């Protein structure tokens, strides 16, 4: 149970923002709220990823299913994932423009004594909004397979929208660092010390941003964690700040869906309704 912090507004302080990651401190929120944010970022941000692969030709040394798996894990630019429907919510059967993106790839090695790399750059998207990510024109792309002379791969891929809960390929972030209380003032943990704490436990990276306990400071058993150090690293399909913003949006959505649910079912009688959704 978090203590009521209604009078103090939650605060988010961005410490560092690059193309790959955002580092921020979230203060004046409860642990459950902070963790919810972390969990949503990890598992519920919608992105686009290749979900179906149709092989027309594959004479490479790698097996079809293995290439298909690799294709699935290639991050596609998902900044506009909002604008596309989930396949399951679409009226079409299977895939359509509304709910999917088609990508094609056709690579053949024709040169002698050369190993041709098949990379994510060879994937041609039918929708310019959703393309395999690329860091500048010099980026060689993500390696998919290697071909020798005469080998050829021709595939048609259908990318769909999804969340990481379903499959890790839809995860926009590589890792979410999360920490509170670097000085262990709350005594949530016990550092195992063999001889010398200074030598064995290097200070946390976030210690500089926290407030070291004063000498002989009394243990406040009422204290609750309320200052959280985040670092969100993207795999490239989304800007890191978008991940955070989308996570907030998603959180809001979740809460409002509860609100909606409460208002459509007229109050207490809700439990008498037939639960046909199960």
């Amino acid at each position, binding site marked *: 149970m978090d203590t009521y912090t209604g009078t103090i507004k939650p605060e988010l302080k961005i410490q560092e923002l690059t193309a790959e990651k955002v580092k921020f401190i979230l203060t004046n929120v409860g642990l*459950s709220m902070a963790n919810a944010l972390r969990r949503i970022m*990890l598992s519920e941000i919608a992105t686009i990823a290749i979900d179906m692969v149709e092989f027309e030709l594959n004479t490479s040394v790698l097996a079809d299913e293995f290439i298909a798996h690799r294709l699935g894990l290639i991050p596609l630019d998902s900044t506009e994932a909002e604008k596309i429907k989930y396949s399951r919510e679409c009226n079409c059967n299977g895939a359509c423009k509304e709910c999917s993106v088609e990508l094609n790839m056709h690579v053949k090695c024709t040169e002698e004594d050369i190993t041709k790399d098949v990379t994510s750059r060879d994937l041609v998207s039918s929708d310019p909004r959703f393309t395999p990510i690329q860091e500048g024109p010099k980026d060689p792309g993500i390696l998919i397979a290697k071909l020798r002379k005469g080998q050829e791969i021709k595939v048609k891929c259908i990318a769909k929208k999804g969340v990481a809960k379903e499959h890790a390929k839809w995860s926009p972030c590589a*890792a979410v660092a999360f920490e509170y209380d670097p000085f262990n003032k709350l005594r949530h943990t016990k550092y195992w010390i063999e001889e010398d704490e200074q030598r064995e436990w290097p200070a946390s990276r976030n210690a500089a941003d926290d407030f070291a306990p004063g000498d002989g400071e009394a243990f406040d058993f009422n204290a609750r964690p309320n200052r959280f150090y985040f670092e969100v690293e993207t795999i490239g399909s989304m800007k890191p700040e978008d991940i955070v913003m989308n996570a907030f949006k998603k959180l809001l959505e979740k809460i409002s869906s509860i609100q909606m649910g409460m208002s459509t079912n007229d109050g207490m009688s809700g439990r008498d309704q037939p639960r046909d959704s199960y």
Partner: protein
Amino acid sequence: MPSTFNTCERERLFLNPSDKKFGIPELQKLVKPHIDSFNSLLEPPTKGILNYAVIDIDPVEIFDVKVPYNSTAQGNKLKVWIEEVLISRPLLSEHVRAKKRRIYPAECRERFTTYAGKMNIKLCWKINDANTNFETKYVGMAPIMVKSNRCNLQNLFPKQLIENHEESEEMGGYFIVNGIEKVIRLLLVQRRNYVMAIIRPSLASRGASYTEYGVSIRCARQDQTTMTNIIHYLKNGNCMLRFSWKKQEYMIPVILIMKALIEINDKGIFEQLVQGEFSNTFLTDRVELMLQEFKSFGIQSKEQCVSFLGEKFRIIFSISPSYSHKQAGEHILKKVILVHLKHNRDKFNLLIFMIRKLYSLVAGECSPDNSDSPQNQEILLGGHLYGMLIKEKLGDCLNSIRAVVAADIANNRPVDFNDKKYITNLFNRSNMEIGRKLAYFLATGNLASNSGLDLMQTSGYTIVAEKLNFYRYISHFRCVHRGSFFTQMKTTTVRKLLPESWAGFICPVHTPDGAPCGLLNHLSHTCRIITTKPNVEMVPSILAEMGIINRLATGHAQSIVNKLRLLKFEDEISIDLEIGYIPPSNGGQYPGIYLFSEQARMMRPVKYLANNEVDMIGTFEQVYMNIACLEEDVIKDVTTHIEIKPTNMLSILANLTPFSDYNQSPRNMYQCQMAKQTMGTPSTAIMHRTDNKLYRLQTGQTPIVRPLLHNTLGLDGFPNGTNAIVAVISYTGYDMEDAMIINKSAHERGFKYGTIYKSEIVSLDEFYDSGIKHHFGLGADAPPSLREKLDNDGLPFIGTRLKMGDPLCAYIDDTQGGKTIVKQYKGSEDAYVDKVRLLGDDSGVYEVQKVQIMLRIPRPPVIGDKFSSRHGQKGILSRLWPQVDMPFTESGMQPDIIINPHAFPSRMTIGMFVESMAGKCGAMFGVAQDSTPFRFNEEFTAIDYFGEQLVRAGYNYHGNEPMYSGTTGEEFQADIYIGVVYYQRLRHMVSDKWQVRSTGPVHNLTMQPIGGRKRSGGIRFGEMERDSLLAHGMSFCLQDRLMNCSDFSQCHICRKCGSIFTSLSLKTHYQLNTNRAYKKHHIQCNICETSRWISLVKIPYAFRYLATELASMGVKIILKTKDDD
């Protein structure tokens, strides 16, 4: 720190394979004993062992009339012998038109044929005393060892090997028989040419006066065949020599042999045996008695003795009638008595030595030699065994010629040796095909031999070199077996790890647990086996220079040994000479200097302190040497040698266990087992492999933590697992009892993803001559649905997904009027068609009749699959846990694998903790961590070494980290030990093991459910299971399991006579039963002749079966019944 993964170096080797040298030369050395022993069969300078063998095969003398063996009139004599054996490289036969005639091993593997070369012999014959004729005779196709001097891959280097569809670092050392790779096992056998004192109860079982004392010597001829001679000690002090001929044992008084060997009188023998020890009455008494007893034979001179021997044994040895008794006797002495020696004088001297050792053993002056100790053992090499077999089969060839003539004479067919036609015809009619016999030996491992080859077993000589993963494959070539004879032994003495064996020759760690424990060992990675006879010609003259003529004064021995050892480093004597010195002791081993220079000995390198050079030492001499392990172990004036590395005692696999010195020893044994069951990288030429089943890990990695040997052997080419982030924490309860949790997201990203390749062969007509009746293809009658999976040629499309019952291929059967016949895919798992091979016949003329279809079955990890770290810590996957719910560290790192801390206290695999720390900092700094055992010590501990690195990377010194619960985000009370551990996926997978049944097939005799997964049978509900249900009082459940769900049956019983067999169903008696008109069938007891006592009872069908069986033996079962009320 620079990176030490050698990634670029490896990439370079792979992209530009050299045509001049091997990238990993160490790998080639590992199989050397196999290849060199095969090469020595036909090595050019001496023409090889087979040449010696051919000389040793006796010519066969055949007569054209039937003659008693001692008559003088014998008719014409045909003498046949073999002069030369030639084995060619595997080539296409002359009848086939082809541009390239060479056959390469890859073709044999893919076509399921035998990699063999043409074998010819130079067969010579002579009629009476006319001129010698000869003929080159084809005797079949002899299987050839890959990469031997008869293999087309010999002297090829990576570039050419790849061109020939081999591994880039192909090592060879095996045969290919019907497409299967076979290795001849290395066997431990008694050391050759060394007199062993033995005390064995079985020796006493040879006769009434025999005792358990004896001396035994296994004599090796130049062609590596052996003959064992044993001298028995009789109760009265006499000595009998025993030898075996064609699996029969024969005993001869030793004095008879001594007198037959050289011309000597009793006094001479006495003096030789006693050697001046006249005060030793134990010795003199027995020698006197022995000589006395021989008097009863009434023969004295050499000639008499030899003739006596010849007369008694000529039948057994089937000696030619043209030989006199004396010639026969001399022949026998040459054939069976101390065959390693040429001269009779030497044989006599050795007999003297043997008898003296025997008497000394009986008197208790010396101890028996331990036949289980490697001191008294050597290795029977594959090539040598193969040579022995060829020799025996060649001898059989000659005998078969004799048999043909004998049959002709017996059937009164004309026999005319002077007729050229008859002779050619004779050779053609005799059974000279030995290639097939050799292939049979390799394919089955069974030794079909009438002499037994002086070996103790008849089967189990060969094993399949399974390419399950590379570690298992390489171990096949390094394993030595004690012999299948010893697997039956009830005592454990043969399995014991003796100090003299594990010191560098045989790995103390790498042996399986269970039945073959201690019998199936592995050579340490530096152990060598001598395959060519080293140059020791100078030794006798050197010894003579040192003044050793006959006997040696005790005090001089050590200095002579030292001088000899120093000479080993000069060119005169080979470094491979073994100088064994057993010092005189009180009741110890029989003293003396023993020099060993023959093949098949185990030797290993150590450093000689006197000159700091690498010396080779053998198993015999090591026992009496002082070898220090480390510098600090050197004792001045005592220690002579020092180990090059402490890890030299370990086998390859044992060496690869990281920090194995920190583990409890059995765990290292388990790891050696599990490394061989790992789903790894079997081969880099998978597209050219046709193994029945191949396991492959798609996402293999190089271990971050590995010993130096990993690089030396180039094991990065064959990754065996993946580096996993492992947290040691009790989380969720799904990690209880050795279960482990895998991160679901890691799983989805391909963690431990594996594939199985299965080979299916479809063969239509085996015999081409009678005309081809079946053709692959789809006929006009094929339904369109078939064409979705199969092409017009009747073969599946590459990449097709096959479900159970889908068509695998189809063919048109002419015998059924052109009907299309479909072969179905029978597996229960979905498979993809990976490759289709059309296998032609040897001539390449006929229409294809055989195809091989490689199927690919994807095997992502599922719950129930088995994994293990490299420390004998195996676990079963119990849950794929969602990433968000996994615990995480401050940096957001989430483990791939969670294991329970309870896996550690009792197993004490501290090595795994060290690996975890080492892996963690290795990953942080991008370096490969050296995990060679014994790198660290009390002063320089692993914990400090890696702890410092961890702190530098910003982690806790001990590898702990504070972690947070994934579900609540709350920090755990305890810090969690988390790091990087190399994990293996084992080949045991639930998909191959699950078994389920509700109703199904039953046994037709007992009506009980059958067993076995393949037949969809049940799992036995046994006695102990029954007991537990009883103990719980669950009688209804018990009845349900054992009766209702098993062999429930009903039958009629007559309550009066108590029989279940006498009730008969009768219709004729229908009218008699007027008041029970509804009964259509009337059942009545045939004996009591009434239906009054008939009841229907429920009994297990098995009981009925029992009653029937008893009835058939005349035993009647009477059942007493009680009314159910």
